[in-house]
């Protein structure tokens, strides 16, 4: 089993007339967290979507465990969790139902496992209410529960602390810390500081042209 690692080699991405990613290099090993910063519109989201294989870079490649991810996309996807700007939740379903379907498509989960995860993010009071009645912060917490439930080594998080109160932000930090302790990798696009210990934290600053 090769070492868990994520590399981006010389990534170039164009969106229409804009050269969004201009030769981005990154390398991340197990137990490390990369914090991607930069003003709006500098390609943080595009970088995450390129890393997870949704977007095709015009040049360069992404390596997972030393292998080009294009050679086995489903295998790579089974190893990663990507949470975008909006938590991927159905407003007509409850948090419990949401997680049951969302995570269930990827891996088998038991009911107690699911309830534990929801309890962990403080959702036991409202886990059976339709998501449309929840606040933005509560939705974000459900997404965090899903993230934990996926049990995958690579996390790609786009602004994971948006809409969260101080306690919620600490929860994000705690989850990331645990993920790193397990030898997992985290790439987070974020405006402010991630609340995790600095030793494992690395930075990538994106800037405008």
């Amino acid at each position, binding site marked *: 089993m090769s070492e868990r690692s994520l590399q981006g080699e010389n990534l170039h991405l*164009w*969106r*229409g*007339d804009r*050269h969004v990613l201009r030769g981005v290099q990154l390398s991340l090993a197990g137990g490390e967290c990369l914090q991607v910063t930069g003003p709006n519109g500098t390609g943080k989201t595009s970088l995450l979507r390129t890393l997870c294989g949704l977007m*095709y870079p015009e040049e360069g490649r992404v390596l997972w465990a030393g292998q080009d991810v294009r050679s086995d996309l489903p295998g790579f996807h089974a190893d990663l969790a990507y949470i975008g700007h909006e938590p991927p939740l159905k407003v007509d379903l409850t948090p419990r139902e949401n997680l049951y379907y969302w995570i269930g498509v990827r891996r088998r989960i038991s009911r107690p496992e699911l309830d534990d995860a929801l309890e962990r993010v403080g959702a036991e009071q409202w886990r059976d209410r339709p998501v449309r009645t929840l606040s933005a912060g509560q939705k974000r917490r459900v997404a965090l529960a899903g993230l934990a439930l996926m049990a995958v080594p690579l996390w790609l998080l786009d602004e994971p602390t948006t809409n969260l109160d101080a306690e919620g932000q600490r929860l994000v930090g705690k989850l990331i810390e645990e993920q790193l302790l397990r030898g997992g990798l985290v790439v987070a696009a974020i405006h402010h500081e991630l609340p995790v210990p600095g030793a494992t934290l690395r930075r990538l600053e994106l800037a405008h042209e």
Partner: protein
Amino acid sequence: MAWTWFHRLGSPPYIYALAGRLTPWFAWPAGALIVGGLYGGLVLAPPDWQQGDGFRIIYVHAPSAWMSLMVYTTMAVAAGTGLIWRMKVAHAVAASCAPIGASFTFAALVTGALWGQPMWGTYWEWDPRLTSELILLFLYLGYMGLRSAIEDVQRADRMSAVLAVVGVVNVPIIHYSVTWWNSLHQAPSVMKLAKPTMPPSMLIPLLMMLLGFTLFFFAVLLVRLRAEVLSRERSATWIREAVSP
């Protein structure tokens, strides 16, 4: 390396220059063949024993109908190539094909109707060939509609490529089903093309027209291709040379 030619075909500056050089090599023979075919078809070929001079519509109807199918197939092959190898030039070819094909499909429909009036006594007959041609026109219009509805050129390329491939799988099915449907409801059509018994004086002009139209398609395609390649490019250096007056 055996694959060099393939990679070179994917290079926009190379294609832009090549298309410019090749255009006259298709345009002039196309012109000569069409003029020759017209003379042969209108003047030299004898009137048909059954349809008289009315049959001469074949010399414009058949090439148009041939174009409608050939261009669609070319478009789908180019689109598929673009999808599989993520080749921008192939998408540019597909994008260039659609308006040409649609216009000739329209010509095939109208000339078919004009031929139908003296043969059937009505302009429109639900003849399988004409019905298929009509559906093909809808397919072209759908393709062009989808393309124009998507702002981003690359996304438009790839989305419409999927549609072109789906469409080309459907064309034979549509043709078969329409023929099947027609055979239930009426006698076989009078409009028979390219009868094996056609004398050479009739057949040769037809073949000239078919080949002439095909070459004409490639000539127009090459001009359009240059435009499409240009609009997909961002690298300034070769464009500056290409467009400097």
